[in-house]
């Protein structure tokens, strides 16, 4: 996991290294200050030597200034390194999402991808900053302070040596106990979020069924468990401070007792033994050493908290697309013919049932083919194999007589244009949206495809025409208008195969017919595959494929199917009863 994440440090390596380097100087100075202070007290104040006081005072001030400078630089580089790392992480995650196949996209919910890109990255950023700042600072501090105190009096320094393991063990026990609880709390938090989220989006259902109290009790159960787990975890963490204080105070008293003996024995003479000034510094070092242990425990907590986030990020970063460009790298798609031979398809290896089972058919270039079938009959799955949104589990899918797996995906998808059932427009003008199909399209070309998709007429009625701004998700155009814009956008690619996946369901029958006529007349060489609910939408196709539960249950023209396919007849009759009424 760390390896994966570390790859994103890149150009911020320098800052990441410089942070601890400057931290090193800061700590060095911070540690030497008490020693200098001791000398100031002993040689200056006690000796009544004003010039010595001024000299040492000057040195001390300079040291503080340098320490400030080092601290400033360390802080600056830490910010640069951690925010840069986070930015690279976001960019890497997002970049990897762009490489995702549909399969990969299906695996992660939109909400979870957003959380990973935002909250999780921020958590990791904070932990990283903490690590490069404190994880180095604390041990450095510990070592320096320890050496400095050893230099003053190695016997008295043994007092710390006794307390360091005691404190370390305590902190370790506390953290590992709290860790388990914290992880549980985080899981419960996810649960709480999902309850609130579902409650919000399902508020109409909640109110319609008078389930306010029911929801309330559901929520209270979770909030209760957060309360109890969190209290438990924090109660354990609350031991941190007192344990630390205990060690500090014990060291202080022991230092006082033994220090007093040492000073008295030396006659408060630094040359012979311990002096009062040195005792003062020793006490300051005690604080520093134990503080740095405390800091380490703090870093530990941060790492615990961010670990879950880091894991979630790694999941996305390590997700590899299962679709790779064909070895042949064919970039030229000869024509728009489509052929399925013995195609089986499952969304996941361990699914028991095939979503598509033994599919065989051939569509000639330029034909119009309708696909009809009930809810869940795998119509969308079938067409998604053509532009390689998914790979067939078994069998071959050919476009232009060549297996789709031999093409470069990019060129294949440019040649096979799908208008997805769940389609979206992006915020931006209508022109911007249509240009998704071809970045360099001229205004005339845009108008042409919009006319083909019967969108030109309504676009022209907007005050801003083609420059009308589409809101996020296309909420300011109606369903039917949105569908027509999506068709225009797909046409802009000048595809060899055009797939309309229930793309005219919100368009009235008359316009629907107009669009079909325009497609037939204006792009006769493009193969058109139309999935529809309405029989009328496919009635005049060259061929109609009837799907039932993943099988082809019938194939032929309208006329043929009316005779051979019972399903087709039933659907036709259910939709055209009036005609006979």
């Amino acid at each position: 996991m760390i390896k994966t994440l570390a790859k994103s440090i890149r150009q911020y390596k320098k800052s990441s290294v410089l942070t601890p380097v400057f931290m090193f100087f800061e700590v060095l100075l911070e540690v030497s200050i008490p020693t200098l202070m001791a000398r100031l007290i002993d040689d200056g104040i006690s000796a009544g030597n004003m010039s010595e006081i001024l000299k040492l005072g000057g040195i001390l001030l300079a040291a503080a200034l340098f320490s400030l400078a080092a601290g400033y630089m360390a802080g600056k580089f830490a910010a640069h390194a951690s925010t840069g790392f986070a930015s690279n992480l976001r960019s890497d995650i997002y970049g990897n999402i762009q490489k995702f196949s549909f399969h990969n996209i299906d695996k992660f919910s939109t909400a979870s991808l957003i959380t990973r890109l935002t909250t999780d990255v921020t958590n990791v950023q904070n932990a990283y900053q903490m690590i490069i700042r404190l994880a180095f600072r604390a041990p450095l501090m510990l070592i320096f302070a320890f050496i400095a105190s050893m230099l003053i009096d190695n016997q008295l320094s043994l007092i710390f040596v006794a307390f360091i393991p005691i404190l370390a063990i305590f902190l370790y026990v506390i953290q590992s106990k709290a860790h388990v609880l914290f992880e549980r709390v985080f899981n419960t938090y996810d649960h709480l979020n999902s309850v609130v989220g579902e409650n919000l989006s399902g508020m109409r259902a909640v109110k319609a069924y008078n389930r306010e109290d029911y929801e309330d009790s559901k929520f209270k159960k979770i909030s209760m468990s957060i309360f109890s787990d969190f209290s438990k975890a924090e109660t354990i963490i609350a031991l941190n401070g007192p344990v630390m204080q205990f060690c500090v105070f014990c060291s202080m008293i022991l230092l006082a007792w033994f220090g007093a003996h040492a000073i008295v024995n030396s006659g408060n003479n630094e040359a012979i033994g311990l002096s009062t000034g040195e005792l003062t510094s020793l006490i300051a070092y005690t604080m520093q050493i134990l503080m740095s242990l405390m800091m380490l425990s703090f870093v530990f907590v941060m790492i615990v908290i961010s670990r879950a986030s880091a894991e979630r990020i790694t999941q996305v970063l390590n997700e590899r697309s299962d679709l790779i460009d064909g070895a042949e790298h064919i970039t030229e798609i000869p024509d728009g013919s489509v052929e399925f031979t013995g195609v089986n398809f499952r969304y996941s290896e361990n699914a028991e049932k095939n979503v598509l089972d033994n599919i065989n058919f051939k569509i000639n270039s330029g034909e119009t083919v309708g696909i009809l079938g009930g809810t869940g009959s795998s119509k969308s799955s079938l067409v998604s194999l053509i532009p390689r949104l998914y790979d067939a589990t078994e069998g071959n899918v050919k476009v232009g007589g060549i297996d789709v797996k031999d093409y470069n995906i990019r060129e294949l998808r440019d040649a096979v244009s799908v208008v997805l059932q769940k389609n979206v427009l992006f915020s931006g003008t209508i022109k911007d949206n249509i240009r998704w199909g071809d970045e360099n399209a001229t205004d005339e070309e845009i108008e042409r495809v919009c006319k083909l998709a019967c969108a030109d007429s309504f676009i022209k009625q907007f005050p801003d025409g083609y420059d009308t701004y589409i809101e996020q998700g296309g909420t300011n155009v109606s369903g039917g208008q949105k569908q027509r814009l999506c068709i225009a956008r797909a046409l802009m690619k000048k595809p060899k195969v055009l797939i309309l996946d229930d793309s005219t369901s919100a368009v009235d029958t008359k316009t629907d017919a107009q669009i079909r006529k325009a497609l037939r007349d204006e792009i006769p060489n493009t193969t058109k595959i139309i999935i529809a609910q309405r029989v009328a939408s496919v009635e005049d196709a060259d061929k109609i494929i009837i799907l039932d539960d993943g099988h082809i249950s019938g194939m032929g023209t309208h006329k043929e199917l009316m005779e051979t396919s019972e399903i087709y007849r039933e659907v036709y009759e259910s939709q055209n009863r009036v005609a006979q009424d």
Partner: protein
Amino acid sequence: MANKKDEPLYAPKGAARRGMGRVPGMKFSWTALRRIFGYLKNYKPQVAVVLVCILLSSVIMAAAALFLQVLIDDYITPLVALKLAGKAVDYGPLLTTCIKIGVFFIVGIIASYIFQRVMVVVAQGVLKRIRDEMFEHMQTLPLRYFDTHTHGDVMSFYTNDTDALRQCLAQSAPQVIASLVSVVAVFFSMLTVSIWLTLFVIVFVLFSFTIAGKIASKSGKYFVAQQQSLGDLNGYIEEMVNGQKVIKVFNHEDKVMEEFSEKNEHLRDKMNQANKYANVLMPVMGNLGNALYVLLGVIGGTFAINGIMNVSITGTGVLTLGAIVSFMQLSRGFMNPLSQVSNQLNFVVMALAGAERIFTLIDEKPETDDGYVGLTLAMRDNKNGGLKKSDKRAGLWAWEHPHKEDGTVTYTELKGDIVFDDVDFGYNENKIVLHNISLEAEPGKKIAFVGATGAGKTTITNLINRFYDIADGKIRYDGININKIKKADLRRSLGIVLQDVNLFTGTVMENIRYGRLEATDQECINAAKTANADGFIRMLPDGYETVLTGGGSGLSQGQRQLISIARAAVADPPVMILDEATSSIDTRTEALVTKGMDALMKGRTVFVIAHRLSTVRNSDLIMVLENGSIIEKGSHDELIASHGKYYQLYTGAFELE
């Protein structure tokens, strides 16, 4: 409709709809603080204990610094003098003092543990109450609130804002209190040593704070910019990830990456600045503390050497060596907590801003309900042929109408006779969406609404169950003004299947049972059969016990609709509203579902809303809506015969949007 689910239905178009884009106001909110104190009222003894313990531990911490002075001046120096004079050295008094101090310290440690422990429970308890109150109150809010607030925003009350509050209550607040107590304690200790030196410390601290304030405000400024930039990026990611499949289909990955990088870089820059200033604050304060330490050494030394008279609140005299040393320690004890406070202040301000948003939700006006007419199961009274209360479901319901004057109760049979009398309505006052709607739904009939998106079809149903209240006119339900019916009972009488299906995390069975909590498994399965959902449910990995997550994301839209119809069927309501309930179901399955539902609702009133005409065709009365008015009504045959709008729609001359 793929993206409609998370959209506020009636929010102004293009309004900021990003949850995390809110900029925290960097203002200190006293009202929020006062209300948080209000929550602490329930914890009076605990808070008292906490305060006493904080006081105790802070005083002892301050005393720890004084300990050094006592040690040097009262013990070590005299002992050294004795030793140098060649006399016997007695460590007895020092031992006693050490033990006394040790006991003192232990009391301090215990105090600090107690306050932290108690504070954890208090803080978590307050948070639990706030969360519960928030959720409980949220359930009472009118639908208008949910339609006009983005879910992201409301969600963040429960996550970001409560979290900030938790940090503040559990960590910042005790720290700030403890720091302030120590500062005061240390201040008095300093005064006992030297007033002059104390004055110097004060001046120095004021100077330090000016610098710290400058840095903090820079950091704050960039922090605001960072949040804005973060919101911007979040919005972008949300839109793009939602359309990820479209991006793939159009090979637009590189283009999207370019735009993303630009926004990402902007965010990085702002984050970098905000963090830089925040990081720099500590070394600045720390080293100013060091400088203070040095300056005190120099000034104190000058005092001591030149024998300048010192004034302290305990008297006057010459500054001793021990006094200087311990004063220097005290100065750290003064400076450190102050820099802690300055560090915490940003968190506190942020937490209070969050608390303010939470309180806005809690203060939101709940749905009003002045109804007094209730709904009850009923049975025929054999004696007089009237109705009486029953606790068995027998397909008979009655309105329970209490009369205040004489305390009697009358029962009116629920027939499902719904009348709109000249109703006007608008989601906001200046935009009326329904005009002069008058209609009568006869009991037991199937009434259909057709019309374009925005014609007001769903709005009419929103009014029947009082999700919204009408502006003008009257709606009567079996002759009773619906304003007089208790909302809960009104809604209980209406089963609604909505276009946007909302399933909850839980098993399929639990989701169906949501319609009627006391329904048996068999009743749920029967309902699923009615909805034609039984077949596919049995194909799921664990059948009815299959756990649905993420709103049933593993199911197709059509399958979700079938479950939601089953949910309404199990509720077995006297009146049913089907709002585009079968829009994603193919026409063949739809025919089967309709047959099942017609059987269930036989003799009861049903409202059907659809844009697919085959769905409404067999209704008894079809109403065609346009721009909030009913332009045609009649049966299918009548409307076809009249060659009006419906006829045009039906023959495909017009498009419904």
